[in-house]
């Protein structure tokens, strides 16, 4: 399996454009908040998911649109979910923060920072117990590493040598609070290492670099039973924490911090690897898909009143 740059571009473009379009729809008031856009961070999800097989499983966070798309989640069902429609991936009950697509290996996302980490770890325990040849990849932010559940999970995963890859998407911010205000030591990968977990920082927001590392890690886990492997991927969120706009200026971030990342846009960098025609074909295809997804969502019915009572318990 070599790096498929066309596929990488397609996923990056789909994730970027889906969020850009969603931002406009939110501004028009056609989709209710909350919405946490992935714009700027797509390379982490795309690079990692390119290295995975369909039946590998990912766990993400409330900022999970890019991950859902990168792992192959159904786009129509995602849009319908955000519109609160019965045809959504969670039947309209979850919304933007709780995307799920079991068939694509996207497990449910959680809105409470850090809560998905033990769930992903437990899933890996299940995989190990059932001797399944697949890995779990768990995505979370830098803020999640401040939660007790992060440490408790890493401790257990290392203890049991679980088949899990942890990916910290470090965008340096919890809402508008910089990592340095929250953590005395910025080296998150170092903290993972202290549990005896092989850890590495991946700089540069590079799809290719992340792909290569995850591919190697996956093989190490499945072929050599290495146990958990940890990556801290430095990245940048371009928009505000919550909502469709940016957060530059008073009370938010300094635009100077974000500018270099925008200048080095990974979408453009990967696009440059393709011919103009190949690029255009992908873009045309994805734009049509997004249009279809919006149409599907807008035409779908809302849940019926009786649906309020469905799925509290499993039969």
């Amino acid at each position: 399996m070599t790096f498929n740059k066309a596929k990488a571009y397609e996923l990056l473009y789909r994730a970027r454009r889906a969020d850009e379009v969603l931002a406009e729809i939110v501004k028009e008031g056609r989709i209710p908040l909350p919405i946490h856009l992935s714009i700027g961070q797509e390379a982490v999800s795309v690079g990692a998911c390119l290295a995975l097989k369909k039946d590998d499983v990912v766990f993400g966070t409330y900022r999970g649109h890019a991950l859902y798309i990168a792992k192959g989640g159904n786009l129509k069902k995602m849009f319908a979910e955000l519109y609160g429609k019965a045809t959504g991936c969670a039947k309209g009950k979850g919304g933007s923060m709780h995307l799920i697509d079991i068939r694509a290996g996207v497990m449910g996302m959680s809105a409470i920072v850090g809560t998905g980490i033990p769930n992903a770890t437990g899933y890996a325990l299940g995989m190990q117990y059932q001797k399944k040849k697949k890995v779990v990849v768990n995505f979370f932010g830098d803020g999640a590493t401040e939660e007790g559940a992060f440490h408790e999970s890493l401790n257990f995963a290392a203890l049991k040598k679980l088949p899990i890859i942890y990916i910290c998407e470090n965008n340096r911010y919890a809402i508008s609070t910089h990592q340095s205000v929250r953590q005395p030591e910025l080296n998150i990968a170092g903290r993972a290492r202290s549990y005896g977990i092989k850890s590495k920082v991946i700089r540069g927001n590079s799809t290719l670099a992340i792909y290569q590392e995850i591919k190697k890690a996956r093989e190490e886990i499945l072929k050599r039973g290495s146990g958990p492997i940890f990556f801290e991927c430095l990245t940048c969120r371009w928009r505000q924490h919550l909502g469709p706009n940016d957060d530059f200026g008073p009370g938010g971030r300094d635009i100077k911090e974000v500018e270099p990342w925008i200048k080095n846009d990974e979408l453009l960098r990967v696009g440059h690897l393709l011919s103009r025609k190949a690029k255009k074909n992908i873009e045309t295809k994805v734009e049509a898909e997004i249009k279809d997804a919006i149409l599907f969502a807008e035409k779908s019915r809302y849940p019926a009143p009786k649906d309020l009572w469905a799925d509290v318990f499993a039969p």
Partner: protein
Amino acid sequence: MKQRIISYTEAICEATEQEMARDSSVILLGQGVDYDRGLLGTTKGLVNKFGSKRVFDTPLSEDGMTGISIGAALAGLRPVHTHVRMEFLILAMNQLINIAAKARYMYGGAVTVPIVIRTLIGDGWGAQHSQGLHSLFANIPGLKIVMPSTPYEAKGFLIQAIRDNNPVIFIEHFKLYAEKGHVPKKPYVIPFGKAVVRKKGNDITLVGLSWMNVECQNAARHLEKTGVSAEIIDPLSLNPLDINTIIKSVEKTGKLIVVDAAWTSCGFSAEIVARVAEHFRTRKKILAERIGFAPVPSPNSPALEKYFYPNAEKIARVALKMVRGKTAKMSFAADKLDSKSGMTEKV
């Protein structure tokens, strides 16, 4: 048919063993489950039988480990996770309330979370090792909560809980561990949501949860001597709750006491009284009382404990007044009113 008498502890152990033998997706984890003593006897011998992949001790990470059990359940396992004190569940509240209770609903029915959380309440041991916190969980849709009070129900409920496709909080009581009773050897399930009438009576309805049902039975024996006939109901399951059996009894007696192994304020006893009141409205005059812990943290000194926990004497006094009027008096030989059996070993 010959009765097969075993203890509550043995019933729990037997249920776990039979389900683990039947279904390889059942695992057992928690602090002390693989000790020789086997978590006060409830998991004795299971690690030898099923191995350390299926029966294992955990790091002291209640939040993380509960989340890990949930994750394993999402992957198709059926974890039975023990928390030897109910207070430890407070550390796991986030996972239980934000994930376990909601996953199926908020993901539109795409997942199931078949976990059993076994936990323990009990008298004594001070402020942080004795609380009955079931009402906190009973407030949350999406959790099934059961409090079996006999060995027979302990086994049938635990097997039901393990086979159930939803999170079940299975609440045991230290004082019940020594209780003995008839338990069939063969595996069986008792469906949740059916209350049991422990004793028929006409004058007053006593509803007791967990160990408090035993106290109600002791109280009823003494009430019998003064000519008061109490009907005793054990709800057994808080969610789902069988309120109809209670309503049917109150229809007959017009008087209700709910005794909880917990505080009464915003507690499950209040829930039962409220539902009964909502049912009868103005159609029937009902007298209702709640009895529970004194509204203070649990003290450690035995001198104070006796005022803190409800007991048979208190229940009988309140019942008598409700039936005979305010001036009714009853003499008690306190020693005889003590629980019919008690916890002999505290671990």
